[in-house]
């Protein structure tokens, strides 16, 4: 056995790290070399000497007491079935905590949020789905169909000017400030309080027409799908809200047809009479359709 082999294997030999075959081979190898044999014997004895002759020291009692006294109270953590659940749950708990804080913040924000002042809203509000609509689309009047009258009719107070914080105008503190407001130069008032539809529609005629056209298309779609009641209601709203609509009388003609369909004959006859005054050609077409 050469020195290198000896150095490689002697520790495993002394501490039972060799399998039986290697152990036997090692033993045979050192048996042929008295120097190696004596080294192995001495190594084994060095370990024994230190185990037997070097006594274990005892920790001084005062030192132990000091250590025990200094041991701080532990942080509480969970331990289920010996699993290190703290390290498992820590990220999840942290995430949940952050999420809870965020949700609480959002909830608080929602609770205390004020609707922002609608300073630039100069189109009439769209019909709210919550507003109950009388069967058959409610009533319309001749006044609704008179363009000249409609344009000069006093405009109702729009929703954005109804009393709220700052009367809908910009105040120093946008939210929660009930102090006096001032008209913001950034949002000039499009229409003076007490103005007319003409002023308003003069500014937004094209936008009004587009919105009305969209409502008209919706009504046509309902009509084509057989929802004559819904179409009649939608058209009534259209006629009332957009009296300057360029195809107002076509809308009325369609509504008269719907009223005939749902059996509201009296109403249909009355509105047909109005249509005759405003647009005899359309009225004739309606008569042709329903009176033949």
């Amino acid at each position: 056995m050469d020195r290198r082999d000896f150095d490689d294997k002697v520790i495993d030999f002394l501490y039972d790290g060799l399998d039986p075959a290697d152990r036997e081979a090692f033993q045979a190898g050192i048996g042929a070399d008295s120097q190696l044999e004596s080294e192995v014997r001495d190594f084994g004895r060095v370990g024994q000497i230190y185990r037997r002759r070097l006594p274990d020291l005892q920790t001084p009692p005062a030192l132990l007491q000091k250590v025990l006294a200094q041991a701080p109270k532990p942080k509480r953590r969970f331990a289920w079935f010996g699993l290190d659940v703290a390290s498992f749950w820590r990220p999840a708990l942290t995430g949940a905590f952050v999420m809870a804080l965020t949700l609480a913040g959002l909830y608080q924000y929602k609770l205390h949020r004020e609707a922002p002042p609608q300073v630039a809203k100069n189109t009439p509000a769209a019909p709210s789905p919550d507003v109950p609509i009388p069967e058959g689309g409610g009533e319309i009047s001749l006044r609704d169909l008179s363009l000249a009258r409609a344009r000069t009719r006093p405009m109702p107070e729009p929703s954005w000017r109804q009393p709220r914080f700052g009367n809908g105008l910009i105040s120093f503190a946008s939210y929660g400030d009930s102090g006096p407001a001032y008209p913001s130069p950034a949002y000039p008032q499009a229409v003076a309080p007490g103005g007319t539809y003409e002023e308003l529609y003069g500014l937004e005629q094209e936008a009004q027409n587009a919105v009305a056209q969209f409502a008209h298309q919706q009504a046509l779609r309902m009509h084509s799908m057989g929802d004559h009641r819904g179409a009649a209601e939608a058209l009534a709203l259209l006629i009332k809200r957009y009296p300057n609509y360029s195809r107002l009388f076509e809308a009325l003609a369609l509504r008269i047809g719907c009223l005939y369909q749902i059996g509201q004959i009296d109403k249909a006859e009355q509105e047909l009479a109005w249509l005759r005054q405003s647009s005899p050609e359309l009225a004739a077409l309606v008569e042709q359709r329903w009176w033949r």
Partner: protein
Amino acid sequence: MGTMRSDEELMVAFQAGDTAAFEVLIRRHQNGVYNFIVRFLGNREVAEEVFQEAFLKVHQAADRYQPNGKFTTWLYTIVRNLCVDTFRRRKIREAVSLDDRGENGERNLADTIAGDEIPADVVSSANEIEAVLEKALAKLNEDQREVFLLREKEGLKFEEIAEVTGVSVNTVKSRMRYALEALRRSLKQSKYRELLERD
């Protein structure tokens, strides 16, 4: 009468808030840790400071202990790292104080660490054979000394020592062989060389 709880069970209990479990662990390992520190550093006064610091660190690190690992390996990793840090700091101080020696070249107390003499406090508490053994141990370099102490006095396996010291198992075995060779040489040169014949 209940069965004795393992180190790992005690550690889990401590993590769950059982303070008494930590006390049991300290009492169970106090002597092993104390012996290792004293013999690694060769100075009881310093060893006592390190001993306190070691258990404080064990406490602070308890939260990070994973029960799937062996507690003694984890414990001795902390203790050994503290010892190595302390040893290196003292060696630096020793080098500085060597420069400050008087004209006669007399040595100060710090020179006793791993020096030729047996530390005075060790001599005073041990018989002559023990003093020879301590001296031989103190002459080993720290890498060999820690491996020898962990194996022969604390009973750790070579694989565990490798984990504690952060080197390969082969390196640990190699250091063990150098340690045995050096101790053998020291004993042969002492007047107690016959110990090798009859022990």
